[in-house]
């Protein structure tokens, strides 16, 4: 198992390299550059700028230089936010985005698993149909509709919660963006849990557990939950990816000072280093999560360990 884990860890490095390379050349293939403005700069100034940032070099030299600095943990200077390095920009926003994402993911997992289990235990009842219809709505409505709707309802009309903004330590500011961000993965996790649970509840070992006279709660917790969660484990990486892309929208609608905006603005501004830095951070997170999911599988089902 440990050897397998390190093999997987080693294979993450070429994966990351491929992602960085693809992003690097795709960004360069897009028309325009970081210093293009509505008013064209005089050619001498443009040439100076290009030289200062090394953009006058052949593209392969630039690529080599970027990889070299990346190896030293340096994402380079931002092309647009001229007084900041990419590391500084990400370092400021990342804790905010991480907090938002972790809270949304936790909410999606806890509520999704509870709802799915509830629906499976009340299979084909009104409660089951109601839960699953709600889940369908959650999957179908995009975040950029849900968040403004929640804002109008709970902020504008009911005055319960702030519509936007982010104050450190304020739960009330986090409520709406976290809920909006959690909703689609929550709904999907609920459906996966229900399906997994229904299959497990039909299995022979659950019949044995009933025959042993175990109380329902013990039976569900100890015997049914772990095998029922295998499909959910497979969905974890896509779920985090969906929360990452969702956070781009949520952060800009709710005015949250995270890193989501850098990816969109960076791409629009042709801020090459900023976009690359964001891609490295996001893909490292996802690849690392994939490794964790492998370990999770081994915990959910000991037969995987061999």
């Amino acid at each position, binding site marked *: 198992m440990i050897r397998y884990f390190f093999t997987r860890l080693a294979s993450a490095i070429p994966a990351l390299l491929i992602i960085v390379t693809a992003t690097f050349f795709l960004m360069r293939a897009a028309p325009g550059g970081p210093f293009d403005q509505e008013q064209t700069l005089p050619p001498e100034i443009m040439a100076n700028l290009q030289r200062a940032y090394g953009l006058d070099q052949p593209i392969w030299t630039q690529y080599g230089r970027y990889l070299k600095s990346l190896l030293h943990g340096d994402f380079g200077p931002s092309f647009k936010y001229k007084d900041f390095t990419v590391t500084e920009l990400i370092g400021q926003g990342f804790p905010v985005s991480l907090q938002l994402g972790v809270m949304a993911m936790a909410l999606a997992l806890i509520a999704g698993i509870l709802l799915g289990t509830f629906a499976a235990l009340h299979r084909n009842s009104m409660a089951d149909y109601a839960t699953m219809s709600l889940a369908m709505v959650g999957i179908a409505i995009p975040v950029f509709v849900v968040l403004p709707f929640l804002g109008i309802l709970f902020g504008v009309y009911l005055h319960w919660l702030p519509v936007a903004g982010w104050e450190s330590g304020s739960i009330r500011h986090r409520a709406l963006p976290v809920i909006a961000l959690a909703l689609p993965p929550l709904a999907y996790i609920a459906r996966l849990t229900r399906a997994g649970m229904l299959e497990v509840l039909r*299995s*022979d*070992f659950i*019949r*044995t*557990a*009933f*025959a*042993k*006279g*175990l*109380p*329902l709660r*013990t039976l569900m917790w*100890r*015997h049914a939950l*772990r*095998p029922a969660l295998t499909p959910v484990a497979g969905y974890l990486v896509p779920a985090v990816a969906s929360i990452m892309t969702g956070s781009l929208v949520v952060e800009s609608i709710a005015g949250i000072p995270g890193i989501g905006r850098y990816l969109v603005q960076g791409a629009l501004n042709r801020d090459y280093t900023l976009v690359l830095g964001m891609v490295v951070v996001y893909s490292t997170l996802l690849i690392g999560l994939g490794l964790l999911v492998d370990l999770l599988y081994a915990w*959910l*089902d*000991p*037969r995987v360990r061999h």
Partner: protein
Amino acid sequence: MTPTLNVQDLRIAFSHRAGNIEAVDGVSFQIGPAECVGIVGESGSGKTQIFMAAMGLLAGNARATGSVRFEGAELLAAHPTALNRIRGSKLTMIPQDPMTCLTPHLKIGVQLAEVMVTHRGTTWRDARSYAARMLERVHVAEPRRRLNQYPHELSGGLRQRVMIAMSVLCEPSLVIADEPTTALDVTVQAQVMELLRALRGEFGMALALISHDLAVVAGLADRILVMYAGRIVEVAAAAELFRRPRHPYTAELLKCMPTIAGPRAVRLPTLAGQPPRPGEVLQACAFAPRCSRAADRCRMERPELVGPADAQVACHFPLSHD
């Protein structure tokens, strides 16, 4: 004396799109304390469903009427909480397929110990050491090591021994063994039957031995019930049933048993025809279409199970052995 299990006029029907299907059609019998009763019949004859009803494990679309009393307490209408006090401790089950009946992600020790923790309120530590002693009792080598293993690390025979140990942990009054050897290979089968016999002697529990195989039941049962199409067709003391079967179906089943003594080249006799399809409503004797002795009366009128408790037969023209 109160019988350990008292089944009266039990009917089990499964609701289905095509209508109701009667799996068990008015069955009554008793199992006395420390008695071993064999229940024999082909698949679909309803033999397993009777005990599923007793354990409260019927499928969601099944409906059971009648009465199933365990040591005087009604089980059919019992609340799950009340049922949980009985099943797993006083009334236990050894399932058919030991490969799929243990929870794959829990260690053997947990699965055994939780029975003691749930029913006796012991600590996990005490429950584990008791479980280890019980594993030793059912001839599992290195019981301490087994407690820390997962089900997939054990062979089929070992897993069945674990299930057997689990069934006797709380000194039950009745153990239901549902085809306990069907999924095992022949040499292991004999060991498992021998183990059941020894445990019966030790714990003095009653045993309901369900099988489609008369040979499995033969060595252990005091009394045998033969089932056909959801009804009991014959009840007899085991020795008597083998020597003098009275129902034609029992007689045909006995002919189908291979013997070591007979000539080998002879093709094993089989029972011609099919049992009635589930859901078929029968006014007549269900066995009549396959019976060589069937007369007009058998196709018009259903025979009732009559006779003293240990020698009943449901047949208009039972075989006589005078």
